[in-house]
């Protein structure tokens, strides 16, 4: 068994109470002048510290854009995002990011990738190394430390990506369709694995997906976005007990929650389809 306390930062208290996200009337437009394109329409939402929230919506609706605004890659055209009261200005290690594409530095070993964040934070080589080992152990990949990323399977690379983001003890973990490129079986294992890590680590998770099953299985809350331009049209609380396992997929509560989300998504997709044809 892994020691939960091991994953708490000795210096920073990232425990309960940190990682609250406020998205305040955020509007995001791309382009200038006549080419302006509205990607995210007026969005107002609060994510509590320690919550696991999924953002669900059809592709192209602005999920990544909204997440990138929380991460600090994209500046809102209007409104602002705050994390624990501080306005997001630029990317930072307090908001860990996991991408859909493979984003490990290919010229660094798995171990060096995970140690990168602690090193940037000013930890010594040995400290960074021991943090890296701790988190590689957390995702079950300690013995692959001296491999290069491309020598690992897609699922393993994503686990390294999660370990790397967590190694900075972020208060928020942002995930943009992190399992989208994996095969179905691997994806299920990764979802359970992620919940297990989250249970130990207790950080706020914002997880973007277009997969209804994934959202319902993982989340405390599912935020459903409209078709482009994206806007949160529904905030669904998922009251399934935790810890969750994949067997729950047949329980009436799960089926009901899933059907509820699915109906909204279907209506949205139809709207988007009709908009395209007019």
């Amino acid at each position: 068994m892994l020691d939960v306390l091991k994953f708490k930062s000795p210096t920073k208290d990232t425990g309960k109470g940190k990682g609250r996200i406020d998205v305040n009337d955020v509007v995001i437009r791309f382009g200038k002048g006549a080419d302006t394109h509205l990607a995210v329409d007026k969005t107002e939402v609060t994510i509590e510290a320690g919550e696991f929230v999924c953002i669900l919506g059809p592709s192209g609706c602005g999920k990544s854009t909204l997440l990138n605004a929380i991460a600090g890659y994209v500046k809102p055209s209007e409104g602002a995002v705050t994390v624990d009261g501080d306005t997001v200005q630029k990317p930072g290690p307090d908001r860990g990011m996991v991408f859909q594409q493979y984003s490990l530095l290919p010229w660094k070993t798995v171990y060096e990738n995970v140690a990168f964040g602690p090193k940037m934070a000013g930890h010594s080589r040995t400290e960074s190394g021991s943090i890296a080992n701790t988190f590689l152990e957390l995702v079950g990949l300690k013995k692959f430390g001296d491999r290069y990323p491309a020598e690992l399977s897609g699922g393993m690379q994503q686990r390294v990506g999660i370990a790397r983001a967590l190694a900075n003890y972020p208060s928020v973990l942002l995930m943009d369709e992190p399992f989208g490129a994996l095969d179905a079986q691997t994806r299920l294992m990764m979802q359970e694995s992620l919940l297990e890590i989250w249970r130990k680590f207790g950080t706020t998770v914002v997880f973007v997906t277009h997969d209804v099953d994934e959202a319902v299985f993982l989340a405390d809350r599912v935020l459903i976005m409209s078709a482009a331009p994206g806007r949160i049209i529904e905030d669904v609380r998922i009251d399934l007990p935790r810890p969750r396992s994949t067997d729950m997929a047949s329980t009436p509560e799960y089926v009901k929650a899933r059907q509820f989300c699915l109906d909204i998504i279907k209506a949205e997709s139809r709207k988007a389809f009709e908009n395209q044809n007019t």
Partner: protein
Amino acid sequence: MSTAVKPAAPAPKAAKAAPEAPRPPMTPPPRPTLASHLRALDWGHLGIVAASLGIGVLLWHIVTAINLNFFINFENVPSPAKVFMAFIGHIQTSIFWTHIGVSMRRILISFSIATALGIGIGLMMGRSKIARAFIMPYIEVVRPIPAVAWIPLAILMWPTEESSIIYITFLGALFPIVLNTLHGVQQTPEVLVRAAQSLGASRTAVFTQVVIPAALPSIAAGLAIGMGVSWFSLLAGEIISGQYGIGYFTWDAYSLINYQDIVVGMLVIGFLGTGSTAAVRLMTRPMLAWQKRTR
């Protein structure tokens, strides 16, 4: 929707579960040694290369032996045997080795300067839009000017013959290095930059830890191309020289209408150029080890 029911997997120890196997090899490949390089040599490939060169020399022998004169005239072209004898004669003289040594020294100096400046300028252009807009026009205009065209100006501008030759050689190597470095920097995947930023990397750290490593393969390719180009610029430059250099040797043989020596000079240049390009590839290889292991 058929995805309604998830397969009831036995709740695994999730965090430790490693459902998918890593890609082989299970153990990291050993560091390459000379012996492993020799073993790894593709003998079949080498056989084809040898056969190709053999056929080339044979055809060369035949067309000169029969004095072929059909549109292309081989009557005055020296045979391989004659050239080979001339070559054997030359390698026993110290002056021939001086020619080679002097040329190699010029290449080494020019190429080193071109490497340092070229990578520096390329990185600067990759990093700053202003630098790019400022420098690019010069590159566009100066790059197409052939090395020979520089001879008069180089002689006027530089204090010594040696420095004008080195200047001309340097110019040849510079542009491929600059452009490849710039290209490499611009090719850096955005997602890697973002990942590093989210891990707390400063602008400088992003540059040294992400952008430069990402550009290395392209820089290495630029160095190899630059080395090749510097050899044919050197030839132009050595026309200036009144004394030494393999280019001078060839030019001198041309003035004296010594056909064997012209071909000896040409072939020596060809082999030296190939050899030094291969040396550049070999020297840049350790920087790209991660690429090799990932293939």
